[in-house]
């Protein structure tokens, strides 16, 4: 036991004395969270829209006022011929043009029917759809506030609620993704590299020719990364709660437990990689390719799995991050308990056992 503790201390020393490792270990999650949280967001803020108000009456003015009041838009009032809209888009900045016809309020009052033309630049379809939805919401909102107005008898009005994320914020989506990515990357890469480094430097030879059990070498290597990953996890959660205003609706303990499971999965994957590689470079390359790409592409965090071709959907089942992503979203955003995610837990646990089994069987007590 004393040997084991000394070994773990040695591993900690390796981590803390290597600035690059440290930077990667703790810099990576912070940078990712900050980048995704503030810079690489797909939320729309201050989109440039142009308003052509040919009516200049009470209704149009009020709707425009509501648009200006929203932080989504940056409204520019313009006067132009109907044929000029395309010219405006060609200049590039304007994402959407709203045109009120003359007699807008009049039509609304007398015919119970008025038209607004919304022209969107759909070269970026996501932005266009979102903007149109916002405008529609504002118009509906105004309509509802009209005295005696609102929906006419027998009209069907779909009432849409964006559950768990009413503001359509980006953070709830990417924080679980970043958590999966960072935990996997750090654990897989760090473990595999630290074991392979011993092989590369020849220290593994000395470790093997000692009474210390080879299996304990592996365990002792895993302990520091397990601990550091927990710290990392805490940092990510604190950042997302306090910097990104993302609440954790479910049990924090459950979240930590599921994350520990993922960390152990990652550690055993790192171990597996270390048993099949001989140099730090190849270990790093394998971890990157084996972890980063599938985690980003196939976990559902960047691209919805449902939209993928069948074959990729099948492949995504073996990506640990996919199951973790589902669980974290369930706990953090929906506030669900263990009874809702036991299946995913079981799958991830099974994967871990599988990786552990293979890598322990492959672990060599000799050099060849």
């Amino acid at each position, binding site marked *: 036991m004393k040997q084991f503790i000394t070994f773990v201390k040695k591993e900690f020393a390796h981590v803390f004395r290597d600035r690059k490792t440290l930077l990667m270990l703790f810099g990576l999650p912070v940078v990712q969270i900050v980048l995704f949280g503030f810079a690489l967001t797909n939320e729309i803020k201050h989109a440039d829209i142009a308003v052509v108000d040919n009516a200049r009456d009470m209704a149009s003015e009020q709707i425009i006022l509501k648009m200006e009041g929203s932080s989504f838009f940056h409204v520019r009032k313009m006067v132009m011929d109907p044929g000029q809209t395309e010219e405006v888009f060609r200049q590039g900045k304007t994402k959407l043009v709203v045109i009120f016809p003359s007699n807008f309020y009049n039509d609304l009052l007398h015919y119970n029917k008025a038209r607004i033309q919304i022209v969107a630049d759909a070269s970026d379809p996501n932005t266009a759809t979102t903007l149109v939805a916002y405008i529609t919401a504002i118009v509906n909102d105004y309509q509802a506030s009209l005295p005696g107005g609102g929906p006419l008898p027998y009209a069907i009005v779909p009432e849409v609620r964006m559950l768990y994320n009413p503001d359509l914020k980006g953070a709830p989506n990417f924080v679980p993704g970043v958590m999966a990515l960072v935990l996997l990357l750090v654990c897989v890469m760090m473990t595999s590299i630290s074991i392979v480094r011993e092989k590369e430097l020849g220290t593994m030879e*000395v470790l093997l*020719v000692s009474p210390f059990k080879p299996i304990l070498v592996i365990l002792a290597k895993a302990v520091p990364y397990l601990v550091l990953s927990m710290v990392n996890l805490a940092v990510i959660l604190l950042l997302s709660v306090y910097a990104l205003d993302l609440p954790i609706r479910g049990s924090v303990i459950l979240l930590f437990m599921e994350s520990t499971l993922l960390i152990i999965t990652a550690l055993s994957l790192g171990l597996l990689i270390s048993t099949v590689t001989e140099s730090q470079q190849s270990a790093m390359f394998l971890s990157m390719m084996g972890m980063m790409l599938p985690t980003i592409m196939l976990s559902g965090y960047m691209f919805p799995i449902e939209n993928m071709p069948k074959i990729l959907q099948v492949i995504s089942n073996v990506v640990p991050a996919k199951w973790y992503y589902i669980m974290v979203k369930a706990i953090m955003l929906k506030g669900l308990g263990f009874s809702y995610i036991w299946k995913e837990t079981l799958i991830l646990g099974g994967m871990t056992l599988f990786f552990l089994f293979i890598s322990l069987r492959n672990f060599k007590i000799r050099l060849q």
Partner: protein
Amino acid sequence: MKAIEVSHIVKTYNKGKTLAVDDVSFSVEKGEMFGLIGPDGSGKSSIFRILTTLLLPDKGSATVAGHDAVKEYKAIRSIVGYMPGRFSLYQDLSVEENLSFFATLFNTTIEENYSLIKDIYTQLEPFKTRRAGKLSGGMKQKLALCCALIHKPEVLFLDEPTTGVDVMSRKEFWEMLKRLQKEGITVLVSTSYMDEANMCDRIGLIQGGKLLRVNTPSNIIGEYPDRLYALKAGAPYRLLKDLSAYPERADSYSSGAYVHLRFKNPDQGSEGRLLEYLHSKGHEDVELKETEATVEDCFIRLME
């Protein structure tokens, strides 16, 4: 019981394509210092790794302190000290941390066996907080030796411990090994420096995976069958070239400041004819004398 017993060991790599160790047998007595002498790639490290249970031999068997190197690998691992050819300490740990790590790994403490490493460690002590990666080559080797010794092993395996170390440190290093031997530790050491061979009780000359000869250094030198000459002249490089074109020579090669030479069929007139030949080639200040063979000469003779 012999400390090390190797019988008919064969080791190949790349699925049998590369032959590294070719039917090698030798034994080392308890408390003996045995040297494996041979150039790089002659199979020394493979033998070391088989004996330290890091590699499995293709054929043959080996025992260390009576334990079978394949079946009883665990027993061997706890009683031997091993210092691999590559510097195998943690570069980012300090001298003291390295030593105490290896002491703990072997279930002992620095204090317990301090007497064993005292001579060496006193030299390292001033640098004990320095990281191992920042030590000089000689210091590194001394530290590695301390780490391999700290658990008082029965058998010590040192794979090319003096490679890359300056002449002074090499001399000191061998003196230390001699002292360890007096403590009753069996030492198997390999080196590619022929001049170090004389420090061992017995040596095995190894080349291309084959053990050419095993004997004491003086016996090996005594077995040298021919008369050996040492030559020196004003233009050493030209001398070497001209000698290799001389029809009567069997062998010639540079050895330190001299060129060593053997005649094919030496007779009374051999020396005179050689001097004449060199004179005709325009060499000046030619010095020719008969000389004692060294281990290196024996090695070169055996390699043919």
